[in-house]
């Protein structure tokens, strides 16, 4: 084995090890940090209760938004078939409104309530999250 070949081999192996370790860390982490998206029907069907953080999306049910003061809000998210009661403490996005699309992130509790720590909405009144469109189409509630 010549000197150059040896050096190339060492370089190759070192790069391979660095890259391999990196990929391992990546894949390991990716699995732990995924947030799944569900519609109200899916979350009830899968019974996704417990400590895992998930996203829930649908329409804010009309006349369901109640404020407790101290920035605590209760509202229902529906996909036309099922609805989930959501509790959220914080600032609601500007375009949060009844009968508009919304995505919340948080934990689905054993008693069927959803405790949200984030409410996501875009800054465009006609915007509908693609996931919500998909789930509304599945329940046949989507209108173009």
């Amino acid at each position, binding site marked *: 084995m010549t000197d150059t070949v040896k050096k190339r081999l060492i*370089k190759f192996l070192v790069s391979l090890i660095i*890259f391999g370790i990196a990929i391992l860390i*990546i894949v390991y982490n990716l699995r732990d*940090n*995924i947030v799944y998206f569900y519609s109200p029907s899916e979350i009830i069907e899968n019974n996704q209760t417990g400590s895992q953080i998930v996203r829930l999306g649908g329409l804010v049910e009309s006349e369901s938004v109640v404020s407790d003061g101290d920035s605590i809000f209760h509202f229902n998210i529906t996909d036309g078939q099922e609805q989930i009661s959501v509790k959220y403490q914080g600032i609601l996005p500007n*375009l949060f409104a009844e009968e508009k699309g919304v995505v919340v992130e948080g934990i689905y509790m054993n008693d069927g309530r959803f405790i949200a720590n984030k409410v996501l909405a875009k*800054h*465009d009144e006609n915007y509908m999250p693609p996931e919500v469109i998909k789930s509304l189409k599945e329940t046949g509630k989507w209108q173009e």
Partner: protein
Amino acid sequence: MSLAIHYVANLLLILCLATSIIQSRFLFKIQNYNLFSISQISAIQFLSILVSFFILIFLFITSDFNFDLVYFHSHSEKPLIYKLSGVWGNHEGSMLLWILILVLFNFLFSLSKSSSQKFKEITVAVQSLMIFGFVLFLLLLSNPFNINNENFNDGLGLNPILQDPLLAIHPPILYIGYVGFSLIFSLSITGLLTSEVDKKWATIAKPWVFAAWSFLTAGIALGSYWAYYELGWGGYWFWDPVENASLMPWLSATALIHCVVVLQRRNTMQSWTMVLAILTFSLSLAGTFLVRSGVLNSVHTFASDPGRGLFILIFLFIILSSSFLLFALKSEKINKPSLHNISSRNTGIMVNNWLLISILSVVFLGTMYPLATDLIYNQSLTVGPQYYAISITPIIILFLFFMILSPKLSWGESKLLKILSEMRYILISCLTITFLTTLYFDLFNFTEILIIFLSLILIISSLSSGLNFKSTKVIVKSNFGQSIAHAGFGIFMLAVVSNAVYSQEKIYDAKVGSKLQLDEYIFDFKNIEQEEKDNFNSIRAYLSLSKNGKDLGEFSPEIRFYSDPPTITSETSIIHQFFSDVYVVMNVPQNQESISLRLHIKPFMNILWLGVIMIILGGIITAILNRKKYEENAIN
């Protein structure tokens, strides 16, 4: 009138198509056309697009709603600056801007005197072939000059969140960065075709690649700063797919600029430089167009259209497959045997190249994984920011280590012990500073302490290597650009870590007259007012900030209600202090009595932007210094 403009503009685009065909003749060995020189044809090419771009600007300023684009994206009552930024705040207009920069780079390169005639001819030909593709796409699939026969009285308006001075300049700057790499790509293809990838190639490419990189960095930074104060979430980076799409070419470009330097100095790493050049441009293309096509779902996407994504995917596929095929055929020819020692600077740069590519893979997987699961399993999901933080942190620690070490290594063989002894004062002082900071701020997380320690060494050792302190004067060395950029990165990392550790946030339901508290800051909620402005109505809250009885200034966060199109936005109010930003966002009032206010303390934000500015300056300095040096060589 409108009809005449429509025809003129389309003719100009067709003229550009024609010139591109003429320019690409060198690729097909047709040389007997000598009526105009290359730079003259490039000038016509550039002017045709420039004039059509000015026509579009004119249409937006005069609010000619006979044009679809103006009707959909403008409004007669909008301030002038947003009529202007409306030009590129939509798909068609931003495509025209993209092409304008593409032809501008072609024109500038055709004027440059750094390369041989033959090399220039082929580079301009490759670039013109791309121009042809994009102009054809513009004409057929996204023509900005389509007209309608309705007589609309007014336009539909521009999304108010885009009505921001910073967003008026963000896309052009970012595009100059993205498109700059098209020239690097053309240069690489030319290098491969002529089998001339060597020191000379690197000398030609270097100023362009550093300029493009600086603009890309500035573009990303502007987008990030905009998100920081406009979105009102207190963060500056969200690992959002669109942000990732701009970060990926940046990572690969950062690896590329270092390879070009190695190639220029040592005439080695030819293949790797070519791979990175092709990769960077492909990622830039994907970055712009996946964003524009709406494939990526994001907070930053405003002008999207899924139909056109397909063209870009096909275009991307052609560019990738043909360039890698060419590379596979030619890589044996361009590679020179490299004879460097394992303990040389090459190795250090190579390791950091791999680390950059690892970060790129992390970002790539995180961005693409949700797309893949949605396509394959029909399962929607998102990847949390924690994934990026946890995966990238260990890579960054190694990266910082090699960033400190590599510039200390010589291009030949180096002794590690000698370097260690040379750096002993820096090491000891940084260790002391880190220890004191750790005690003072009650820091116990080992990772954070390590990053702070390494960043400090990087800052001091970079700055001291770029300047030579003689007894009476300070001499700026030729690696000044590098030393500024590296020190800037150290400052940036220091700020990122401290910001992540010490940020604070609190939400209040506040009444006028109440006093709110966060950390040692007191917020005195004074008043609330309604105002009517040109194109929106607003509710404004007034708060004054004080700390330990000392008055620090006034906040006036605002909610704006726009009517065209109907949208509500929150305007944050920030008081910048040297060490920390204090940040207030208000919410649409839900009831009469109280209003929700979110208060943030964001430490080290100024320092963070300072680091970013130094990184950009470093790139610009290197681009300019190289230019000078080249011209001197040319004269001799």
